[in-house]
């Protein structure tokens, strides 16, 4: 057993893990954060995607020991104070999920993507989602949702900026 520390959705956890345990299993079995799903354990489907120090990572291909000291965000960490993240809300409004099994992975991928590229084209969105598989939706509504979320996020940050500007001016 190896002792590691993980900061998950803002909470610090210290725990003993076997060197072979996958990060996905530690999140799911030990921290009971079962929103991170395992669709393939082969690194292909993206259902297990979490943010590891801000970068999307496949928790099925990551050994928990190698994440020692890392800051991790899972799907459970997206909503803040009972408020859905704009990307979650967009998935809901656009019917971007059916069975919902792939959804956490898509959400985490999209969160990171929109930070990098706040005003993407449809083709860029598809490209960004190409590492995630969904068997139910046919992707179209997921792409719609990311488009909608991008717009909402831009408007929100626009609001913030204009508030900031006006404070400066004031």
């Amino acid at each position, binding site marked *: 057993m190896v002792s590691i520390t993980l900061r998950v959705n803002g909470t610090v956890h210290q725990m003993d893990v076997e060197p072979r345990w996958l990060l996905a299993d530690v999140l799911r079995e030990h921290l009971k954060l079962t929103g991170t799903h395992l669709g*393939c354990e082969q690194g292909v489907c993206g259902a297990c995607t979490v943010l590891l120090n801000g970068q999307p990572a496949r928790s099925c291909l990551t050994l928990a020991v190698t994440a020692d000291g890392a800051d991790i965000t899972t799907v459970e960490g997206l909503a803040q104070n009972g408020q859905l993240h704009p990307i979650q809300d967009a998935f809901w409004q656009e019917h971007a999920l059916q069975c919902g099994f792939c959804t956490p992975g898509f959400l985490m991928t999209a969160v990171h993507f929109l930070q990098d590229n706040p005003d993407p084209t449809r083709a860029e969105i598809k490209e960004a989602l190409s590492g995630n598989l969904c068997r139910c939706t046919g992707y179209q509504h997921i792409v719609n949702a990311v488009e909608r979320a991008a717009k909402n996020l831009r408007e929100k940050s626009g609001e913030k900026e204009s508030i900031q500007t006006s404070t400066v001016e004031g």
Partner: protein
Amino acid sequence: MTTTKETWVGRGIPRVEDPRLIQGLGEYVSDIHFPGQWAMALVRSPHAHARILEVRTDAARKLSGVHAVISAVDWEDLRQPLPDMKPLSPPALAYERVLYVGQPVVAILADDRYIAEDAADLVEISYQPLTPVVNVEDARQDSVVLHPEFGTNILDYVNFVSGDGQEALKEADHVISATLQMGRVSAQAMEPRGIAALFDEKTQSLMVYHATQSVHRAKERISTFLQMDPNHVHVIAPEIGGGFGVKNGSYPEEVLVSYLAKYFAHPIKWSGDRFEEFLGTYQEREQTHHVQLGIKNDGRIVAFVDTYYQDNGAYPGGGVLVAHNTARNLMGPYRIPHFAIHCYTVMTNKVPQTPYRGAGRPQGHYIIERIMDRAADELGMDRIAIRMKNLVRPQDFPYATGFPGVVYDSGDYPQTFQDLLDIVDVSAFRVRQQQARAQGIRLGLGLANYVEISAGFGFEGVHFRLAADGRIELATGATGQGQGHRTALAQIAADTFEMPLEQIAVVEGDTRRIDKGIGTFGSRTVIMAGNAIVIGGQEFLEKAREAAAKILDVKTTDVVYHQGTFSAPGTSAKSLDWTLLASELQRASHSMPAHEYYFYSNTATYGFGCHGVIVEVNEKTSEIRIPRYVVVHDGGVVVNPLLANGQVIGGVVQGLGSALYEEMRFNENGQPITTSFLAYHLPGAVSVPDIEIHHRNYRAPGNPGGYKGVGEAGIIPSQAVILSAVEDAFRDQGLRLNYAPITPGRLFQAMHREEAKL
């Protein structure tokens, strides 16, 4: 003054299911964790056909953290046949022989899956390999018979004849022949199969959490296998990560987990992984058809003759049903006065077949649509004209296809097809196609029509009850796997009770909440459970009026119900809403109104429509791109257009998978060689176009709600339409495609094969 009543049905509202799912709070079987639970892992056969000589488990047993290593050599109960797989049920654990790669031989129970898999590696099984039978051509010869006690590899033969059958070919001016095939596909829901069970010694009852499409059937199978009183077996389907038909059947893992949880009186869970999903989950589609179409000079069909063989795999897992349903779909939406169909289901050393989304509908339409293309090409006729000539017309309704029980009843097939042609703008496309060709780009247009036959057998029910908080709870045995039934059924109920949606709660997939159920497959749930709400809801309302009468102290006949309120006009009684009714009933210690209603119907519904696709083929790489995909679709009364679109788009994209990429391949020893997402390609976000959907809403005449199925519409003609389009791109070369999927490799071969050309 006329007012239009606002209804919930018909509104594309976002789903009530989603808030939990998008926050990662949905509970799937793999998320269930009983304190101290043991994980089950399976040792599966590496041979397609072999005798088991010896099973040595000592080393595995000794591993720390392992609780049991179980083989049917010493567990006779586990030699019992799996329920519902007659007449050739496999044992729960194979003994003496194995008949497909992936068949479970040894079960291991351990503290966690890591240890269980370590132990699996320590199990030693000696096999004597036998000659594998891996394709129907060999299997039909019966030189090696999989089940000697059955005497033949032909599991089932049935024929269907209408009119003069084969004889009618003589009346044809031309007889067009072709051998058309479809490869094997695998459903590959994102959530692998899984099951967890907990036995309560005190009540002697078994709780099973099961990724199944039918909790009641699972309950029946489990209680049969365990020889338990069904009243002591409870099956719950929590969230299910996609089903597509293959989470519906009888599987070894279902009875193993249930049996072992009871035997050890210890909670046990099996969460399949992706590799097991490729090996052990039942598959579909694989068929070879030898077709003849008799046709007049003017393009009119006189007769259709088809002899086909379905590769069923090693045991009856539902493959026969698929073969028969294929026959039912071979006429498509066309008038075919005479036909003869010979349908063989043949056993091979592969994992069994079971219904997968479409379940014979895609196969039947693939055949009729492709042979129509072939006929048009050979007659020098337009592929559109031949379809227009033969489509069932509105004046033909009710139209009996000649297949027992199938009577098309509604819509306008030719007009809908014409609408598709207009939307696609065929003449403009032909011009573009020419221009592109001049620039070295090959474009092709594919068109296909379909009928989506849904429901038409059995029943589904709803248990209504007034909950303590005043909400109306509806429990149904038809469990969803992502379709959004909790929303759609609530919309139907909200209209039935003239109430806001928030006051309705739908409970799915719990055998404790409703006595009977069949399950969700074949797009039947909204039709069956939806109508149960429409009709049974009135009976429940009657009971609620009786209850209200007691509280209001008036006669039941005095009570009027209107938009959520019970009142007794002309009396001095106050009025009650549901919340008040619930609290008053509780205060008076009266029972809450409850009612169970089952909707039985043998009347199928007949949605229909057509798909049009434009493909762009790279001649050098044989890569096929899809710039445009249009669907014109009739789904009857659509409860929630947002959900219906999701079903159609999702179906089309799955269909594109089986048209372009997906195929389970096996080597000559019956070894599956496509057992990961790297080898078996699912469509991804980049490879699929946005699907354009145009709805037509012809009410189903055969049920009160007017609903039709929408779950298969997207997938039915997808293989037909893609192959048709690719051929069209190479029209000048007379390309002939006879096998789906059309992968780049296969297209390359077809383009470079002389006999592929006219």
